[in-house]
């Protein structure tokens, strides 16, 4: 697979997708009608997309008997469910574990992937295309194939039931982010680096003090994507964590579902409230980093 060297126009793709086709002032009644129908349809879909979350939050404020009453505004809103979740489960501990894992995972994968991407983008050496082909190929490998041996590695290192396996693998870069960041590095004008070399900058200086600051938008995208991936991951916590004090939030939510759902009598109010607690940090992240999400995703697909 050959990857074309991309020009500066690639960097322009990081700009968030904005409306390029501004309405041209005068419009015919026909096109206004079309526009009106389109907006109405979009509004209908928006309600469909938002409703589950509004419903979830509202349900978490209702007592157990009323969780399913499908009334959007609770009759007597109460925070009692939050108190009882806090008493039933070590929520604060789980949140702390999750924050620790996600921050380490995101920082580790960003720095290591940037290093590797830089190595592929700037240096020319024999076998480069072959190696990069391996990077791309490893993207296609399903996780199930490596799952068991990777578990055995962490097992033999005595890291089962610790948080290490959830993030330490990220220290070695990840194919998808290497690919993404390499595209950005290739978009930087090479003259800058050649000039730095002439001025006596070492390889590390060039990377750390020139390349890294210049591709900050791409690094932010990587950080956010990995943060989301690590926060929402369930499978690895299921594999690696045993003791409930080590759980991350999604693993904890699953445990609560097992205990207060499948385990016997359904305590929906606890499960609903824990779901809200699991989801809210992601929603906050989304609103803080909304533009980066959009630009990052728009860029990933453009290569086809």
């Amino acid at each position: 697979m050959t990857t074309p060297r991309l020009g500066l126009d690639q960097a322009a793709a990081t700009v968030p997708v904005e409306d390029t086709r501004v309405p041209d002032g005068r419009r015919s009644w026909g096109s206004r009608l079309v526009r009106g129908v389109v907006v109405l349809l979009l509004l209908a879909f928006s309600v469909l997309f938002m409703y589950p979350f509004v419903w979830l939050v509202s349900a978490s404020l209702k007592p157990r008997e009323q969780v399913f009453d499908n009334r959007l505004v609770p009759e007597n809103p109460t925070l009692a469910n939050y108190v009882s979740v806090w008493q039933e489960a070590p929520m604060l501990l789980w949140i702390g574990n999750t924050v620790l894992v996600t921050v380490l995972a995101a920082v580790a994968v960003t720095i290591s992937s940037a290093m590797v991407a830089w190595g592929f983008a700037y240096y020319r050496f024999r076998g480069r295309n072959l190696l990069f082909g391996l990077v791309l190929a490893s993207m296609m490998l399903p996780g199930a194939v490596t799952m068991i041996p990777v578990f055995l590695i962490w097992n033999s290192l005595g890291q089962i039931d610790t948080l290490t396996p959830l993030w330490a693998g990220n220290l070695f870069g990840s194919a998808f982010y290497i690919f993404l960041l390499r595209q950005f590095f290739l978009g930087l004008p090479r003259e800058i680096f050649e000039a730095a070399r002439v001025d006596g900058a070492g390889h590390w200086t060039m990377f750390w003090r020139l390349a890294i600051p210049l591709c900050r938008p791409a690094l932010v995208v990587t950080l956010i994507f990995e943060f989301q991936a690590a926060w929402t991951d369930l499978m690895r916590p299921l594999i690696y964590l045993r003791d409930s004090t080590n759980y991350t939030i999604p693993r904890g939510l699953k445990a609560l579902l097992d205990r207060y759902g499948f385990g016997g009598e359904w305590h929906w109010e606890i499960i609903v409230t824990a779901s809200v607690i699991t989801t809210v940090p992601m929603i906050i992240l989304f609103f803080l980093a909304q533009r980066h999400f959009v630009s990052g995703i728009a860029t990933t697909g453009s290569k086809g």
Partner: protein
Amino acid sequence: MTVQDGRRGVAVPTHGTAPLQEVARRRWPWPGRSRPRPRVNRGDWKPALLFLLPWIVGFAVFTAWPVFYTAYLSLTDYDVINAPTFVGLDNYERLVQDAGARRAMGNTLFYTALQVPLYVLFSLFLALLLNQAGRASGFFRTVFFLPNMTPPVATGVLLLLLFNGQDGLVNEVLGWFGINGPAWTTDPQWVKPGLILMSLLSVGGSVIILLAALRNVPQELYDAAMVDGAGFWRRTWSVTVPMISGPLFFVIIVNTIAALQSFTEAYTAFFGVGTSTYSNDAAEFYAIHIFREAFEFLRMGYASALAWLLFVVIMIITAIQVVVSKRFVFYEGENR
């Protein structure tokens, strides 16, 4: 300095000599070595190695070795506690006879075959709408992406709540139209449709990719088509779809691979500690089957064989998609 890349018709930056001297005259903020040393960096293995080392180590330890080791494990009996014992092709023989594996593969293929087309068509539909929405599209884009932020575990919980057969919201809404909704979460026939419908909420990412592609279609093409008398559908089919076929294909491939490996939502909603009381064959996807064989029943050797089969299936399906797409995907600049 840029140079015109004739083949692709785009400007590509080069490292010409004139601007090099220009930039080199500026002072850089870091303490430089006393004497500038111009160097050509062809064949720069050593410094490159410094940067590539993390990946080389990671690839060897976490990808290359595991791939060979699962291949080996698939020929053994292994329960983590005792050393693996070689059993030849027994695991594969068992795989062929294992009704559970067959059911799981069937579930997965059924889900993928239904979910991917629906998912892609729905994202394309929303992207086309957004493309017509003008200034309002920014707001809607945000709204449509929001469900992507829900952790899949929470989506699993939501599935159980909204699609609850007795008092779930979905059936209540269906009731308004006089439809008696099915027991989505308990009736084996309706479990996968429920999962598919729930998954449609997370089309946001694909919508953004397709919308970005739509925005890149040159307006002139539409104008020309209009002059030629092409109506809306004709323009969509003959201009829009070919012009975004690259990203469209990307969305299809990525979602197919993801669908073949789906795990979390179905596992959350239908499997748990009390599996014996709440196991649901209809929701047991192949990835769930592998996970349970490996980590619940500790049959690592057999699970490795299962994993290899998944790998082969994914490769075959992706290869078919690539071959088929060669006829439909149009890359700009290819035929210029």
